[in-house]
């Protein structure tokens, strides 16, 4: 059995792993785990990842969770071009710095923004207080400013002149609020220019393929199944605080 990637392209880190694997022609079997259907809670999937999260990787007997770990594993095993995760000490440190920072910064506000603006009201029929949404969008704005000022600065990509895994992780995060109709690039020409560069470097076709699911999320009919709805609300409560 070859490499298996357990992904749901609704999830930002899954998109980063998907793009990386496809872009680098890494052969893998895609196993779709539909989060909105609670498929990550099955006993079968718990065998792959006891943390019950996507993305997850299975390479023979070796199971691995956490998108950053998966990206680095793939990059090393399949000897991806150096620019993805450079050997140079300082260049690599910049990628590590971004990959570390984003967990509790951009990741957090992109998920909240998408769910509070779109998924909770439209899909789960749960309206979010306007003050809460406003605070979330303000936080997103602050994060975007940090992304521009601290990481991107006057560089072509987040950590230098070439695309790296940092850019993949960042762009897939930003597409989350974009899918909810947040116009995050509109007043940010620098970020918009970066987005275009990343999309071109990835390849427009692959970029669109990876984002087809999330960009259609706004057209999803409201969830009717009461059990699924209740379970989702419970497991996603933390996005409402």
């Amino acid at each position, binding site marked *: 059995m070859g490499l298996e990637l357990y992904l749901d392209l609704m999830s930002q880190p899954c998109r980063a792993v998907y793009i990386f694997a496809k872009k680098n022609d890494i052969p893998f079997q895609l196993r779709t785990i539909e989060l909105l259907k609670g498929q990550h809670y099955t006993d079968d999937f718990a065998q792959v990842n*006891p*943390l019950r999260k996507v993305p997850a990787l299975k390479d023979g007997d*070796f199971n*691995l*969770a*956490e*998108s*950053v*770990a998966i990206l*680095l*594993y793939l990059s*090393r*095993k399949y000897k991806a071009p150096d620019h993805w995760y450079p050997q140079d*000490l*300082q260049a*690599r*440190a910049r990628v*590590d*710095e971004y*990959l*570390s*920072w984003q*967990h*509790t910064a951009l990741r*957090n506000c992109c998920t909240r923004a998408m769910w509070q603006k779109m998924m909770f009201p439209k899909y789960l029929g749960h309206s979010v207080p306007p003050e809460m949404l406003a605070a979330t969008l303000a936080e997103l704005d602050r994060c975007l400013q*940090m992304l521009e*000022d*601290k990481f991107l600065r006057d560089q072509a990509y987040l950590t230098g002149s070439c695309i790296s895994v940092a850019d993949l992780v960042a762009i897939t995060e930003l597409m989350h609020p974009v899918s909810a109709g947040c116009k995050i690039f509109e007043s940010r020409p620098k970020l918009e220019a970066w987005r275009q560069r990343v999309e071109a470097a990835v390849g427009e076709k692959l970029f669109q393929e990876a984002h087809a699911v999330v960009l259609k999320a706004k057209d999803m009919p409201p969830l009717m199944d009461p059990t699924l709805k209740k379970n989702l609300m419970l497991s996603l409560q933390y996005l409402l605080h």
Partner: protein
Amino acid sequence: MVLELYLDLLSQPCRAIYIFAKKNGIPFQMHTVELRKGEHLSDAFAQVNPMKKVPAMKDNDFTLSESVAILLYLMHKYKVPDHWYPQELQARARVDEYLAWQHTTLRRSCLRALWHKVMLPVFLGEQVPSEMLATTLAELDMNLQVLEDKFLQDKAFLVGSHISLADLVAITEVMHPVGGGCPVFEGRPKLAAWYHRVEAAVGKDLFREAHEVILNAKDSPPANLIIKQKLMPGVLAMIQ
């Protein structure tokens, strides 16, 4: 110019870096940035780290933030023994997996446990509702269970038979609620055994030295009003 590390040993990630650097004989100049005095908010420190957080590193012109990035930088630059971040593909992936997982889970609940139980009431004079503290401690408990069941399992250390960066990052986190008086190891003999192994591998003296500040955190003199006002927004954001 020797490597400069900007640390406050009150902070878990700072302790991990301190221990790693000292254990590996990495020469550095220590700059203490006292969080409880708001020194991280100064303009001078913003030159080192515009994110205004510790730990931060300055290697001549190169400044770096984020403890995981700093640990990996030190590891690569100073060619430390392999077991800290093994070359072997799967072993290294296990370290990466732990380092990624911990940010939003153990790290968060250790921070909240210390602040809800001790620092908010004692240092900032803010009472924490008992239900909030109970929820925080329950979350900590849950994350400690994952640490044992998913990461440690029946191994000597988190990713195998030798200490690695994962163990350093984890132990310094776990010492946070310990400093807050939480009986983290009670009823957890497996975790307690791991703690003793890590302490022995690091060296008892170095371990104690790194943890002196946190173990005295409950004796923090209360912040005056000016400091309190200065620190509150950052504290609230940090423990959110």
